[in-house]
């Protein structure tokens, strides 16, 4: 019993650096900027409540059925309208704020308050867009939540340069990274297992449906037909990669392959299906969780190349 408690403690609170936290912070900052810019032209249509928009209030009514305590855009719009600020102005301010908070997270300025505000505003936006939110929104909320509770700021922030303070305890950094890693294992195991029980993922039929289904049918159907014999292999690789992620991502020997495989999978999803935001958030979470060492090594190599005398 004592031994297993000690092993669990060593696993959960293993000392770590803050490289992963820098990747998570910078990645989420960029993700917020991309999210806001990608929806910029349709922002008022998606989140407005007037005629010609998707009626945010209907989504917030549905949300209230589950919880009255979950943040929503109505919490900002209602007080704004009381003091004469139009709904469209508040929505535009939210949009500008998301981009500004993203920039602050990237450069590492006022990390903790910006992380909290970014999490709050993004959550309010996503919840008010409940009717049309999908995986990317949940994963971004997960990442932002983990950023809020993590020991910010890391060494690569402007905050650390302007106000150098005591470094976070390595055990605490290790614990928060472990939480992210365990969550990634849960995500891929459930995602992979759910696919693996269906014959149509192994025989390629589901890969065909995914690639030829609007609005993800970016690849011309004739091209998919030409390579239809690879669809069973592609479907099988997805099932195996995801389901066995929790097993093979931990050992040092197999981690590079599983990590590379998952990163390529998400790059492929982004390119083939147009799910760029989804691909980027999964890349960020995986690199922060399990890829910070290769990223740091890559950056060190680039720096040494730049410093070499010509």
């Amino acid at each position: 019993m004592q031994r297993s408690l000690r092993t669990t403690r060593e696993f959960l609170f293993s000392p770590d650096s803050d490289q992963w936290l820098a990747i998570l912070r910078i990645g989420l900052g960029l993700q917020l900027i991309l999210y806001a810019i990608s929806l910029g032209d349709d922002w008022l249509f998606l989140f407005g409540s007037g005629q010609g928009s998707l009626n945010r209030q209907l989504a917030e009514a549905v949300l209230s059925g589950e919880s009255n305590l979950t943040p929503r855009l109505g919490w900002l719009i209602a007080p704004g309208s009381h003091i004469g600020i139009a709904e469209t102005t508040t929505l535009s301010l939210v949009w500008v704020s998301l981009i500004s908070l993203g920039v602050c997270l990237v450069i590492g300025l006022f990390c903790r308050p910006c992380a909290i505000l970014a999490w709050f505003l993004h959550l309010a936006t996503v919840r008010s867009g409940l009717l049309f939110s999908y995986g990317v929104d949940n994963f971004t909320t997960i990442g932002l939540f983990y950023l809020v509770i993590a020991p910010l700021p890391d060494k690569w922030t402007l905050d650390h340069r302007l106000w150098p303070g005591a470094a976070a305890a390595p055990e605490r950094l290790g614990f928060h990274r472990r939480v992210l890693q365990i969550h990634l294992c849960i995500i891929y195991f459930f995602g992979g297992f759910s696919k693996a029980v269906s014959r149509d993922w192994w025989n390629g039929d589901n890969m065909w449906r995914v690639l030829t289904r609007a609005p993800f049918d970016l690849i011309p159907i004739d091209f998919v037909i030409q390579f239809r014999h690879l669809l069973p292999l592609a479907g099988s690789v997805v099932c195996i990669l995801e389901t066995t992620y929790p097993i093979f991502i931990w050992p040092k020997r197999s981690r590079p392959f599983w990590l590379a495989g998952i990163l390529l999978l998400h790059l492929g999803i982004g390119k083939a299906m147009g799910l760029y935001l989804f691909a980027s958030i999964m890349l960020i979470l995986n690199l922060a969780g399990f890829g910070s060492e290769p990223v740091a090594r890559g950056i060190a190599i680039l720096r040494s190349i730049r410093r070499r005398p010509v």
Partner: protein
Amino acid sequence: MSAKQRVFWSAFLVFHFTIAISIALLDMSSGMVASGRDAAFWQRIEAVTNTILGKGRTEGDWLRELIATYSDCTGIDAGYSYFAPDVPANAKVIFEITDAAGKITYDLPVVDKPPAGIRIATLLESLRTVRYQPFRKAILKILSESAAREHPEAVTIRALLGVAVQPGVTDYLKGKRTFYRRLDVYEYHSQKTD
């Protein structure tokens, strides 16, 4: 790190992943039950996870609301079985627009950029699965009003919600193509008078 801090964070980890895993299991079990795979086993899993998540309690119950709020705020409120176990049929809305002269044209929901298009597709997916008719009608009404702004000449707009049934690879090679099965229709009338 002090022992108290370790105990606190360990308790958080247990609580957090109990909720996350329960929601993931609930999501997976509803997909399994719907597809008829080991229905009895997955119904038992559904019952256990509903209990953990407080869904057996009455609506408005404080514990149920607390767990729902926590899972919303941490992003763990959804499962991870996207396109699993099977890829669902594709929902679509087509607008049938009739002008004052009786001419009929057709259009699709229009957004400015592809990322918003993915959101509209997600919205239509939720319409396909929702069973509460007034909710479906309300969304179709909103989409029709949006289409009416794009087509000021319209007197009547019928929003036809349907499901696109795709053929498999073998059927596609035999010449079969996607066909549409109508699910619902909403009729919008312009308030313009002559």
